[in-house]
């Protein structure tokens, strides 16, 4: 089970989506699939066709920059970060 931490811009878009979600997944892409299963449409918020992570969405696995194919270990921490910008 990996521990996902989502950016604060996401929970308000979906019913009962928390900031922290535990998912059973072998890769980052699978973890996003599990989110999509429970909250349809969520993949579009993080990924573009390809699929690829959106330009201003960054993912870190255990504090290392990651991609969709990065593998997850039991207990991995996955941080999904919206790039700091705006004003």
């Amino acid at each position: 089970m990996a521990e996902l931490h989502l950016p604060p811009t996401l929970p308000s878009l979906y019913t009962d989506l928390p900031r922290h979600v535990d998912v059973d997944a072998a890769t980052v892409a699978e973890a996003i699939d599990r989110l999509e299963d429970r909250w349809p449409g969520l993949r579009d918020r993080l990924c573009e066709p390809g699929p690829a992570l959106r330009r201003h969405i960054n993912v870190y696995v255990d504090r290392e920059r990651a991609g969709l194919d990065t593998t997850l270990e039991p207990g991995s921490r996955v941080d999904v970060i919206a790039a700091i910008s705006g004003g």
Partner: protein
Amino acid sequence: MAKRVVLTVGTRKGCFLLESGDARRDWQVRGPFCDAWPIYHAAIDPETGTVYASAASEWHGAGVWRSRDLGESWEMSSEGLQYPEGELKLSKVSGVSIAHGKVRVGAEAAGVFESGDGGATWSLVSTLDDQPGRGSWNDPDKQPPGHLGMTAILPHAEEPDRYMIIVQGYGIFETRDGGGSWEPCNTGLRAEWPLEDERVGYCVHKLVRSPADATRYFQQNHCGMHRSDDGGHTWTEVTDGLPTDFGFVAAAHPHDRDSFYVIPLDPGHGRTMPDGAAAVWRTSDAGSTWQRLSSGLPQQNAHIGVLREGLAIDSLDEPGLYFGTSTGQVFASADAGETWDEIASYLPGISSVEVAVVEA
């Protein structure tokens, strides 16, 4: 039956609703809605009262928000709102069009998407693949900053499968078969740059049709104000009498086929009202002469601009006009533009204003 006038205001930080009775004197502001996502265009379906707002988040992509209860609750969908993997990438959705039971949105890269289920799901209609200019308008090296792609869609008054679209910097195209085939509609327009193909390359900012005469159209172009008397196919310039030939907006009087409104702006980098004095200009003779309307509008140090979808006119007997500025003010007139009041002062930068008259 008493009536309520509702403005949908799209801003850089969400959608706002401004409401008044039909006297249009006292306004209440609600918002921001849509999680404060940047909204390009928000409009109300006159049949169902549903509000649609096209949005694009730099983080989370493009989608269309909708509210069936005038802003009390909102949903957002992007299902189907993307191009197949390959040449085109969808960065934002822009102009919203609601007519004949369908909602359509323009997109960047340029394409038309439509929804037949009230905005729950979307499907790609066309990217105008066989049209002149199509290769150029999708070339990133030829796109301006803030490229919008397909900026607007104007439905036909009566025919569900017939509508016009604007491709930014290339002009108007019309379909009569629901997007299966297209025809450029730019004859008579002016360009201040070389054209590779005379049929396209015209920078149409805003296209409106007279509700009183379905053959009469006006457009504010990058290069002048233009009128069409044949359903938007050929154009005659009617800029003489206006302070500049540049602007973004136009609005058609709901009952008089000869009356249209425009807000001229300085061209170049400024793109604000000339001399820092705010004014709306009206023609009542189809563009032969123009009158400056400024009573109640700021006349000193008002360096304000109005973007493509920033001017709206209602359908009441004496129509009300409304415009929102890129610096967050909304001005309203309840007497066809003769006098104006500032009805909101500190909204985020405004990209669109639309109006609907609903039962109270």
